[in-house]
């Protein structure tokens, strides 16, 4: 299972990639594997703002529905519309083409509260036992 070193992680299994003043958000390899085949991703409109931990969307697999939580505060500046027609990208490329939203970060400091890859890997290992 892949947890790239350059990303920040949450215990809700989202990842955040900082790009300048923006953050790109998706779900982790562990999350997509646990969900199984993703069939639909519901994403917010551009312009919506979220507080840390607030639900910004929903990801559906065949048998489950899970909320998506904003890792940090921000305003949505872009949404991955490709997922509307190709939700399978969340399974096949969770850190790349399967990205979900781009946030203009409200407070860069909040990123420091997220998990590094090592810590997330440990957290996931505990989840499995």
């Amino acid at each position, binding site marked *: 299972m892949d947890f790239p070193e350059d990303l920040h992680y949450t215990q809700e299994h989202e990842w955040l990639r900082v790009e300048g003043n923006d953050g790109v958000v998706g779900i982790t390899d562990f999350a997509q594997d646990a969900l199984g085949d993703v*069939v*639909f991703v*519901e994403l917010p409109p551009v312009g919506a703002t979220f507080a840390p931990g607030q639900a910004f969307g929903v990801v*559906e*697999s*065949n*048998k*489950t*529905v899970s909320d998506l939580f904003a890792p940090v505060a921000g305003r949505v500046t872009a949404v991955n519309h490709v997922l509307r027609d190709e939700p399978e990208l969340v399974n096949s490329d969770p850190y790349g083409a399967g990205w979900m939203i781009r946030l203009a970060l409200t407070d860069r400091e909040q990123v420091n509260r997220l998990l590094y890859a090592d810590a997330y890997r440990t957290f996931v290992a505990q989840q499995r036992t």
Partner: protein
Amino acid sequence: MSGYTPHTEGDIAAMLAAIGASSIDDLFAQVPAGLRPRATIDLPPGLTEPELRARFEALAARNAGGTGPAVFLGAGAYPHWVPTAVDQVLLRSEFLTAYTPYQPEVSQGTLQATFEFQTFAALLLGLEVANASMYDGASAAAEAVLMARRMLPDRHTVWLSRALHPHYRAVIRTYVRGLGDVVVREVPFAADGRTDLGALEGDLGPDALAVVLGQPNVFGVLEDVAAVAARTGAAGALIITATAEPLALAMVRPPGACGADIAVAEGQSFGLPVSYGGPGVGLFAARERDVRSMPGRIVGETVDAHGRRGFVLTLATREQHIRRERATSNICTNQGLCALAVTAYLSLLGRQGLRALATTNYRAAHAVATRLEAAGVARRFDGPFFNEFVVQAPIARWEALVRDGVVAGFPLARWYPELDDALVVCVTEMHGAADIDRLVRGLAAPAARAASG
């Protein structure tokens, strides 16, 4: 032991031995002792099959069904001939005694038939997609309002046409009760029996969530759905139509083609007996882009592991068993067998038969309306109609006719106090010439009756 349980004394002994219990009573040890003695069933002894049949035949004989009075009632339930082939399909045990198709590999019959039902519903209502059925037309209308609320969460006011069937209006009101934040208001009807467009236009504000109207409405009058849709759409609200007599849609422009966002119907006319008001079946159609807000089960096409076409329940994440308190609806069991009846009926009548039957109904009802008018019984509303219309006649004449074995429509005063001496009369292919003569004679003004001898 009842006839429906197969256990011999030997079976019971062997099963108890395998369980390790000494009596069946032991199996209930978990039930608190205080409850058991009070649970003695206070019901009469069981009947044999002949006794049962005699008892039910006696009950049925006290009703006006069968060869009883001539009944010119519609108003939400419509008498049409049910082809024998339709009922024969319903009696196929493989359809009758299966349940919701959770195991698609051995439920393809139900699944394919339901896919066909969804296609029929979408075609007739003129919209892109339909679900696997709702309980009836009225609860489908209520679910349509709940769907509208999911689509436009910031709007709260639902406008119901006062010419929408009162049962439909009542069910909508009941369903939105619990939500606490939906305001229900009513739009009056005009002199032609249609929803009053002028009134609607003035009132639709930025909080308008949806407008719901009947097509045809409870007076049998055909609404100008396109005109209402134009005004509703301009206000940013949704338009929902509810059709109690879907046979009309064989000749009337379908709601979807008039701009309706959600269209529902009661399917009873298509292959189900009136059965004292149920079971019927709700048809529910919407636009494809809104499908994830739709309530109820939906069947979709897919392939099996060998690439062969097959059907499955799909988009299930909208539903209660997965989304629980955040589901689009709490519906689980729907009206599967009734949807099958509709599917078989529409298959059998098909394009030609349905068109012909609608024409027959239209002509029969208009012929009766014309004769009544000639007999001095005027129509109350002059809007266009299909197989049902409102006439003005003293209630005393209606009562006298009931005593003579003719139920000459439904007295609307029970639902509309302002419409005293108004009867909504329904004429279908089921009404024979002799009964129609009795209806016309009985309702005719005394002068006209005398004149016609």
